[in-house]
């Protein structure tokens, strides 16, 4: 983290499953380069021996009884599906 890293926008967009236009790639690379440059100052903080904080709530390992509860009906669960057939979400063929 000592030198400002080069963000490989093609690689990251692929990981994020996000199709970007060439214009967006150029623009986001420049804008995020500025943001990353700003974020570089985190490398100045001495974090030796410091535990990470995942969240600030004093709650850990919440267990629940493994009991079936009423949930959404099939009709409600499928209400927002872009395509459906026979009580299932329809998608294009994945395997020929």
């Amino acid at each position, binding site marked *: *983290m000592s030198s400002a*890293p080069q*963000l490989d*926008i093609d*690689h*990251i*967009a692929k*990981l*994020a*499953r*996000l*199709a*970007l236009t060439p214009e*967006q790639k150029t623009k*986001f690379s420049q*804008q*995020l380069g*500025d*943001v*990353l440059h*700003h*974020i570089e*100052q*985190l*490398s100045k*903080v001495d*974090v030796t021996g*410091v*535990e*990470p*904080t*995942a*969240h*600030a*709530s*004093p*709650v850990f390992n*919440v267990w*629940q009884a493994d009991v079936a509860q009423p949930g*959404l009906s099939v009709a*409600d*669960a499928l*209400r*927002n*599906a*872009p*395509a459906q057939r026979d009580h299932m*979400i329809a*998608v*294009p*063929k*994945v395997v020929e």
Partner: protein
Amino acid sequence: MPSALHFRTIADLAAALDAKQLTSVELTQAVIARTQAVEPRVHAFNSFDVSDALAQAAASDARRAAGQARGALDGIPIGLKDVIAVTGQPLTASSKMLQNFVSPYDATVTTKLKQAGAVLWGRLNCDEFAMGSSTENSAFGPTGNPWDTTRVPGGSSGGSSAALAAGEAIATLGSDTGGSIRQPAALCGVVGLKPSYGLVSRYGLIAFASSLDQIGPFARTVEDAAIVLGAIAGHDERDSTSFKTDIPDYRAALTINRGPWKLGIPKEYFAEGLDPEIAASVEQAIAFYKAQGCEIREVSLPHTQYCLDTYYVIATAEASSNLGRYDGIRYGHRSTAAKDAVDIYAQSRAEGFGPEVKRRIILGTYVLSSGYYDAYYLRAQKVRTLIRQDFLHAFRDVDALLTPTSPVPAFKLGEKADPLSLYLCDIYTIGVNLAGLPAISVPCGFTKSGLPIGAQLIGQPFQESNLLAIAHAYERAHEWSAQHPAL
């Protein structure tokens, strides 16, 4: 002269409803009429459902007539940010991705407001997926600040603050991940409360950054905020980060707890970049507390300069993960341009998300990616520990911290075009989310040009009663909330 119905407080209206001087249908009709009159200029709502609201109001009146009123919120129109689920109503997060989504269930806060008898009124505009500080990132167009509609209302909950300031609701709910309740409250001249992380259930809230998100109220007064908080707070087994704690009577605590308090002034929050008129108003608020016998101490939060960077690593990392669910398969926008099944993901997301959401997904994916995780994400989580320790250390000596809410008053629509300058709007609010603390923005004056100014009070974890009482002491000695925009 009493204010118009649409500018009155919950406390005042509840008394009028109980005294049979007013019905909920009359009140709701007044709010609807006001909304229809000003909405072309304000655009605080993504949608509203007039017949549904009037049906809720009629049900409230029937309860009250039968002697079964459920308390101060029964019959009061309350608007919800369009990231909070209400069964059968649209839930868009101001995104094309969810343009046609209809909620199949209620958020826990929605259930609780329904149980309290509130009239749920409208879906309020916000930055897309709550990402922004101006509401300009909404896919459905920006919201205007009611004090000057050529300016932003703040964000991300800008529809919630603007609707309230304009008299289009009696109270509203928003969500706050880095300041998204407090900053728009300050810019619109209303009260905005971000509760302690874990006090209010996030079940049914569209997730942005799960370790930072919290739902809270916008209200005309601290007392109204206390009433709404009392209705929505409490443990919920459907949110595993929700905290088991007794919910006190926040409204009663306002007058029981009378100070004097010890207030800390973090010196890092009064540094370069703070608008001089805002600095002067907050200094006057400090002087007020001092005159009331409060002890004022300068304190230091030495890691303040790292809050913004820590936030943008953690919030974008969590967002990139949370927004992975929008894949065009089960719900939300599905591209018809995709070449194959896998391409549905990339194309649907390209078409469904706006530029700021894409930027944050890219940044978040990057800081979590192999080879960079330790340098960015893990390091940010460690700096987060230090930021939280700064606050807890300060709270050994003081009851609350007093700061400006926003470094600048409402700015012009389109004025802050590059992402970084907009991110800097949140410098006084972000630390609170990283540390999981409660904080409230209260109106504390106006600029010479008539724009509202907010002061922020930051409290100890789960000490909302104290925080609200401290804010109430200031508010009742001032009349900022009695002023309304001339729309």
